[in-house]
């Protein structure tokens, strides 16, 4: 015979919802997280110190300079022609656009205009590189939001284009194609047809990427309304390029102050409305289509002709002249040893690079070396504005936003 167990004590009455221990506010403490400088998501070396309240960013400091190579100081100590290899390494994803920007600034100072074919060739390489740059940014953005497939498609498309650029310039990454007074060499045989095929394949891959992302629920939730920059703010921060246009300001140097042959080409400038990460994505997808159009038009319209001015004060003479005539030897020697004699003066040359206005402020003292080269890197203002743009955003949105600004360490940190 056993005693009956005691009846279980009645459970305490449940507290009214929302007032229990689990609902009490946590004693929150701000935390400082250091991201970078060597972090796989910082695309270069950029240190972001964030002050967090839970997951929300309350403050941030951006610390750059880990990749500073003394671009301007180096350029002031070489001849004008020797600056070109340094410019390749500014935005290494779209190297020839920096070449074009620098060459145009020097030519502005010299009062030099280059032959038609050279202008078309410059537009062709610029726009091919714009496609590469935007593809890189889109692929990395997909990768950082968990869409690894997009990265693979994007890199495949970019590699096809880099193959064409390799045939043209001899280098896959630091393509160096433009010279003061023209371009380095003409198109190889059959290159134009191959490029059209490459563009077809790139367009397929681009549309695949767009189909994967543009109406993707996860992608939209993660990008719409995130890091929105109003039109007035974008101007105030000094944005240019796709980021400014995503905020609704239709400023594009190719339309505002047409250089090369952009005024003879038919293309549109896409403009966003909200200035958030989704708009920056959409603007770039549309710019890919426009660049594709531009390259095809150029390849159609281009006519045979000179690819550089015939003025040996600026351009190296052809080799038969160098080896066969005294004038050729002298011109070659003077260009190599003393450099192009750029007239005294100062000038600000600007072009539309992949991330915005790429400016070169040049000062010449009349010698063969630049007295001063000031670089306005397109990505600079965007990176500088990050603490303000991301205030109140989630930590998880930091990396995708960093990507839509497309910080390129080479140009921002000089």
């Amino acid at each position, binding site marked *: 015979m056993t005693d009956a167990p005691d009846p279980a004590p009645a459970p305490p009455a449940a507290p009214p919802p929302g007032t229990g221990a689990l609902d009490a506010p946590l004693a929150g403490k701000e935390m400082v997280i250091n991201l970078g400088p060597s972090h796989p998501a910082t695309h270069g070396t950029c240190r972001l110190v964030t002050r967090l309240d839970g997951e929300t960013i309350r403050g941030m400091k951006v610390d750059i*300079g880990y990749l500073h190579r003394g671009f301007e*100081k180096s350029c002031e100590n070489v001849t004008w022609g020797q600056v070109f290899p340094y410019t390749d390494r500014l935005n290494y994803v779209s190297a020839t656009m920096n070449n074009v920007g620098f060459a145009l600034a020097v030519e502005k100072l010299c009062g030099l205009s280059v032959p038609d074919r050279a202008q078309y060739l410059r537009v062709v390489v610029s726009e091919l590189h714009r496609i590469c740059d935007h593809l890189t940014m889109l692929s990395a953005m997909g990768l950082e939001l968990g869409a690894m497939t997009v990265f693979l498609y994007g890199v495949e498309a970019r590699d096809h284009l880099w193959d064409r650029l390799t045939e043209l310039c001899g280098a896959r990454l630091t393509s160096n194609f433009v010279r003061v007074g023209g371009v380095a060499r003409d198109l190889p045989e059959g290159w134009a047809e191959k490029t059209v095929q490459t563009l077809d394949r790139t367009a397929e891959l681009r549309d695949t990427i767009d189909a994967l992302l543009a109406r993707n629920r996860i992608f939209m939730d993660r990008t719409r309304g995130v890091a929105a920059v109003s039109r007035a703010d974008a101007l105030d921060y000094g944005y240019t390029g796709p980021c400014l246009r995503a905020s609704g300001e239709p400023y594009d140097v190719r339309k505002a102050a047409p250089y090369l042959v952009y005024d003879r080409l038919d293309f549109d400038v896409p403009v966003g409305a909200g200035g958030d990460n989704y708009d920056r994505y959409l603007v770039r997808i549309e710019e890919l289509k426009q660049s594709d159009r531009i390259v095809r038009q150029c390849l159609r319209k281009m006519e045979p002709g000179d690819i550089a001015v015939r003025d040996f004060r600026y351009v190296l003479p052809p080799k038969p002249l160098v080896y066969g005539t005294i004038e050729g030897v002298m011109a070659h020697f003077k260009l190599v040893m003393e450099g192009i004699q750029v007239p005294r003066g100062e000038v600000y040359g600007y072009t539309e690079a992949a991330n915005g206005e790429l400016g070169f402020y040049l000062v010449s003292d009349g010698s063969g070396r630049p007295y001063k080269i000031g670089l306005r890197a397109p990505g600079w203002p965007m990176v500088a504005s990050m603490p303000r743009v991301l205030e109140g955003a989630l930590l998880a949105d930091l990396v995708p936003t960093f990507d839509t600004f497309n910080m390129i360490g080479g140009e921002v940190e000089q």
Partner: protein
Amino acid sequence: MSKAVVEALVVRFPGDAYDPYAGPGGDDVVFVRKERIAEVCRYLKEDPALDFRLAPYLTAVDYLGEEPRFEVVYALYAPSRNHRVRLRVKVPEGDAVVPSVTGVWRGADWFERYCWDMYGIRFAGHPDHRRLFMYEEFVGHPLRKDYPLRGRQPLTPERDVPDLFRGPGPGPREA
């Protein structure tokens, strides 16, 4: 194309905006006295007929051997009018302090820090006046013409980090 803007400046700030000229390629340039640069910029931005709302590109030049030695250059653009002007401000070495334009455009922030870092020109009223590329212990300003091309500086000893958010090193520099 932007000649009218430069002329308007010369009329509006007689003596403080001077010597306008058209540079190579038709750029419109005007010199501005350094004391008035912030006011000139504010006028350029806020006058509805001028509307220079895009934050400018700033850089500095070291004309070693000339007097005044430095120059700060402002490349401005007005998107709504498609006007582009350049302001040049002479800065003497003995008094290398320029009024900051960060109050006019927030985008001028990093460019002014760059000028301080590379040329040692101070900007009065800048909210976060640190070096941009170099570290705080760095001695000198590398883009000055008298800084040696192969200048080397000793490694700075690693310090305790008292405040990660502010970064290593001693407290903020005296302004």
